[in-house]
């Protein structure tokens, strides 16, 4: 097996041939759709070459490992008995091409919560069966902030293999994980090993300037639960689920039953969002997060305090999807900047 770290040179056109061969072998090959709006399963490999100069898709690729809706079981009911039927097994051999670092990082982050003491076999199986081919990101806009949350356009976190696009239309393929190495072993004979590191390429795409230091707000949040800053942040938030659903690492879900008839139905795991007023509402009518201010505080807290506290990672990859798609223009990086500014000003005032 080729150890992680080795690099190969892929010539122009070879990537499409590689993808086509995978499709012919029965792999599900997923890439950004030609219009750049979402991810799609390709019918042939020609459209596989990732165009990371485009803005990221509106929705992240978490749908592949954490689908928007999946049955956790099916049931068959008679008058005096119920049979619980296991859901179909997730597809084997999924390969995702052209995944930007802010998307690729999500699987590792998500696995922390989906494997927290209890293992979510549905997530685990999908993650295990998915090969992530990350790609250097050549896009930056004013909503991007990967560099503020510990990532960069060339981060290989979460990728099994990583591609650097060369100016001649070819690629440098870097083997990142053992899983990636095992997967790619079969086709390495077509590619030549290289010493090129692509360092100059990486330097050309430094990503957005750093906007904030998440460590500064991490301790501020729990110490300032009732701070007057909270109601002034995101006060125009309308409480839809766009930000959570577009986010690569938001993982809240609901379990709901859907019956086709008395006899047949299924329990579904579906995406849910902490900004929905019903999310935490008790059957009795009591709601611990009964205002949008509390719900937005939860969103920011979960990402920058709770998840880091429990899992040692920020629950944000800086992709900016939530901000790009927000109907009222709320920019989470700007919100964090405001909190950081307040936190710094208060600590300066204390030291005086």
């Amino acid at each position, binding site marked *: 097996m080729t150890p992680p770290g080795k690099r190969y040179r892929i010539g122009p056109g070879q990537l499409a041939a590689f993808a086509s061969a995978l499709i012919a072998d029965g792999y599900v090959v997923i890439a950004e759709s030609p219009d750049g709006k979402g991810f799609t399963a390709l019918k042939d490999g020609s459209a596989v070459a990732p165009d990371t100069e485009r803005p990221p898709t509106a929705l992240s690729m978490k749908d592949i490992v954490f689908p928007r809706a999946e049955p956790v079981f099916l049931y068959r009911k008679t008058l005096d008995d119920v049979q*619980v039927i296991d859901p179909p097994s997730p597809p084997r051999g999924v390969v995702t091409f052209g995944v930007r670092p802010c998307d690729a990082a999500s699987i590792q982050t998500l696995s922390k919560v989906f494997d927290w003491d209890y*293992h979510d076999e549905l997530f685990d199986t999908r993650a295990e069966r998915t090969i992530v081919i990350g790609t250097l990101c050549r896009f930056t806009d004013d909503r991007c902030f990967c560099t503020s949350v510990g990532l960069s356009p060339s981060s290989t976190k979460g990728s099994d293999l990583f591609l650097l696009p060369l100016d001649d239309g070819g690629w440098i393929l870097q083997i990142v994980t053992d899983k990636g190495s095992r997967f790619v072993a079969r086709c390495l004979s077509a590619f030549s090993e290289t010493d090129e590191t692509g360092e100059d390429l990486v330097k050309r795409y430094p990503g957005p300037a750093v906007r904030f230091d998440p460590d500064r707000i991490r301790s501020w949040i729990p110490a300032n*639960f009732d701070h007057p800053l909270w109601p002034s942040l995101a006060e125009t938030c309308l409480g839809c689920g766009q930000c959570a659903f577009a986010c690569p690492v938001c993982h809240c879900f609901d379990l709901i039953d859907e019956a086709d008839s008395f006899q047949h139905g299924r329990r579904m795991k579906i995406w*849910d969002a902490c900004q929905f007023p019903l*999310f935490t*509402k008790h*059957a*009795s009518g009591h709601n611990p997060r009964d205002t949008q201010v509390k719900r937005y505080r939860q969103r920011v807290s979960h990402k920058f305090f709770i998840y880091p506290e429990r899992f040692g990672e920020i629950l944000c990859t800086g992709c900016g999807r939530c901000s790009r798609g927000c109907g009222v223009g709320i920019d989470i990086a700007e919100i964090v900047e405001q909190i950081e500014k307040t936190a710094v000003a208060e600590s300066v005032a204390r030291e005086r």
Partner: protein
Amino acid sequence: MPNLYTPHAMVIREIIPETPDTTTFRLQFKDAEVARAFTFRAGQFAEYSVFGEGECTFCIASSPTRMEYIECSFKQYGRVTTALRRLNVGDIIGLRGPYGNFFPLEEMEGKNIVFIAGGIGLAPVRCVIWNVLDLRDRFKEITIIYGARSVDDLVYKRELKEWADRPDVKTIVTVDPGGETADWKGEIGFVPTIVEKAGLRGTDTVAIVCGPPIMIKYTMPVLTAQGFADKDIITTLENRMKCGVGKCGRCNIGSVYVCKDGPVFTYAQLKELPDEF
């Protein structure tokens, strides 16, 4: 693909109407092997489900010392509890669990125990009461103070009588003023008032308090005044849950997940939590 959201099939063996809106189910595992492998501790909860309607979170109301049945008590509020109430003996429901932490029974051994419950809050307390009574010689004095809005709203009525009849338990049952009937022989008054009157002593004693938030809010200062340390007052929280295993993201209070770190908390722990429950 079997997974952690797959429930066990449970057969409803008995349906006990407790109050006009509260019911107790006595359940048995359909699969004897699952039944043998199933263990839990007092205070843990489970996800109960009606197929086609959904899941609902309740504590396990029976004692782990009595494993022939699993019991749960629920008040009719939403879609699932309404569907549960329509079921009959012999019907099948789903159960996932047990989940969450539990009451520190070992640490409570050798001490006096005071149980204080209001309304359906007696369900989680009843689990511990039977657990403690089945191991009676390990504990010192046992006091049960239970209140409901009215005589009609008292749950586990036959057991209240059984406890009252036992010489080794002091049982005080109360109803809110106006909730008494002509032949009511118990106390009349809100739980915090009755707790105050009971003249408890916080030394060497653990208090287990469950009930509506308003009852908990006014009972805590009374216990503190009677000398209970915050760490010796234990309660349970009931945030909305779906997965029960720390993933679905709705039961947290700050960085504390009620489903994983709770549902059992000491008053000392509650004081550390942000005010969002």
